[in-house]
């Protein structure tokens, strides 16, 4: 409760400030185990491995649909070509905005959350990025770069729901999550088309595919892992992969209609 109140206080103080959004801090390098960690050893960078891969879609994917922005004249002017983001499929069938993460296999290792915030911006009346990952306890900074009002409405199930207004351009708020949860939907109730997804994990081994469908999970300790790929419309797929010391393994996920 104390941490939550402190987070709320920090969010309030940040929201009163100004400044430009900072860069996203995805795929952070794993931190060493904390002092209170159980017996599991820290990850040795000298033997760390990597899992790379690509997510594709087999079949004919629907094209992103144009969004009617007439409800807010600012949005209509700022981002007239905005389209839905829940089907990012390239010409070769590659799928972007897929959250890929280690679902199982890290044992009892614990990881300290980075202090650098992950930034989610509201710009052109949509969220940037649309899908992102964050660690438990890591600050999420939410910025309103638009000259219109947004409300930031997180709808987690394991964490606490929140809804905060950002009526002024440049406003920022910071929020932290206390429990891992994949995935948490975000939405703006002012602009019904605006939504985003956040994966909250207790480790740093996650990535979001770019528009070419590729991802990379770096710094993994040698071991056998369950890797899950999550997409908001296509669902989830899992694969098991074993990596040795300083090894790079490639996995492919193929979603079907």
């Amino acid at each position, binding site marked *: 409760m104390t941490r939550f109140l402190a987070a709320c206080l920090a969010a309030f103080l940040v929201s009163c400030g100004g400044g430009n959004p900072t860069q996203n801090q995805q795929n952070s390098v794993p931190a060493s185990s904390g002092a209170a960690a159980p017996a599991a050893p820290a990850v040795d960078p000298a033997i760390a491995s990597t899992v790379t891969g690509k997510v594709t879609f087999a079949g004919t994917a629907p094209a992103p649909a144009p969004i009617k922005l007439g409800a807010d004249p600012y949005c209509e002017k700022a981002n007239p070509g905005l389209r839905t983001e829940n089907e990012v499929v390239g010409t070769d069938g590659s799928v972007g905005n897929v959250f890929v993460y280690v679902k199982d296999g890290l044992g009892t290792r614990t990881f300290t959350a980075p202090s650098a915030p992950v930034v989610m911006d509201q710009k052109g009346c949509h969220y940037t990025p649309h899908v992102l990952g964050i660690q438990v306890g890591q600050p999420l900074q939410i910025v309103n770069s638009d000259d*219109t009002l947004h409300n930031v409405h997180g709808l987690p199930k394991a964490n606490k729901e929140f809804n905060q207004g950002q009526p002024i351009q440049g406003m920022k708020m910071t929020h932290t999550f206390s429990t891992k949860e994949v995935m948490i939907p975000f939405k703006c109730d002012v602009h019904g088309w605006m939504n985003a997804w956040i994966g909250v994990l207790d480790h740093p081994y996650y990535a979001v595919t770019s528009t070419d469908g590729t991802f990379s999970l770096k710094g993994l300790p040698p071991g056998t892992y369950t890797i899950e790929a999550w997409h908001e419309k296509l669902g989830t797929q899992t694969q098991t992969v074993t990596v040795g010391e300083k090894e790079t393994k490639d996995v492919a996920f193929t979603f079907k209609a």
Partner: protein
Amino acid sequence: MLPLFAALVAASTGVLIFAGGLVTSTGSGLSVPDWPNTYGWFMWTFPLNKMVGGIFYEHLHRLVASTVGFLIVVLAVWLWRAEPRAWVRRLGYLALAAVIAQGILGGITVLWYLPDAVSIAHASLAQIVFCLTTTIALVTSRGWAAGYADPKGPRRSDGGGDPRLQRIAIVTTLVIYTQIVVGATMRHTGAGLAIPDFPLAFGHLVPPQWDAKIAIHFAHRAGAATVAALALATAGHVFYHHRRAELRRPAMLLLVLLALQITLGALTVLSQKQFLVNSLHVVNGALVLVTSLVLTLRAHRARFADAGSAVSFAQRDGNAGSAVVFAERDPAHVQRRGLGA
């Protein structure tokens, strides 16, 4: 003036229900995260050019609600000052208490992120407020007073001697209210499209599969059939046994609104909950309820008739000399208001 003002308050309550329906239908309930302020602004100073997207519906609902709340305060005070009948004054106080509770429920449901129970209670209490303002408008109307003045007496004129009509009208009104509460439950639990086809349910008369949402949705459809049967029975009874327009008009209106309501309900499903159709379904449901209520009250008008009432209208409307008769029934109020002859 009081009858006109009471009618205005009742009509504005109907407008408020439509505005509330728009909020839910557009999914705008949380587009203004704070309450009672709007994005930190005092409600009435919020810039109009910032009423964009969902804020337009939510903030508009708040503005209309505040206006209706103010009108009900004025109505309650007016009744307290000028209405000789104690039970009508009490209706004013009750409407005031209900609209205050309604405002608090509206604030709570925003601050607690629209919990189903609170949102359903908010929707259900809205109907009670509408019923109260409609009742006040009816019993303060000149038509109601004229019924008492009918030299042939209430038994001949308004169904006062028709216990069958009185019973079935009460049952119909209560069932309509229950049906609206079920509809609010369906609406706020996201069960509006749990059965995606109409008039069948998954191609069958009875759904072949069940879960909580399908059950709520099907209960609303079954409720509609029950309401339709009761409304037909009530209206049929009126048309067959009574000639007075004060009963036949609401009976006819009840049937028209009911047909419209079923059509809107079907269109709500078939249009995938198009927000305007959905909102019209909400407000028309409220109109079905108050129409049935008006018919019920008129069927029971004889119960409210007494020697003091006829005089009380004359007194309220400026003929203070008649108040001496009323003083025999409620001397304390006449003394309190300084209305005695």
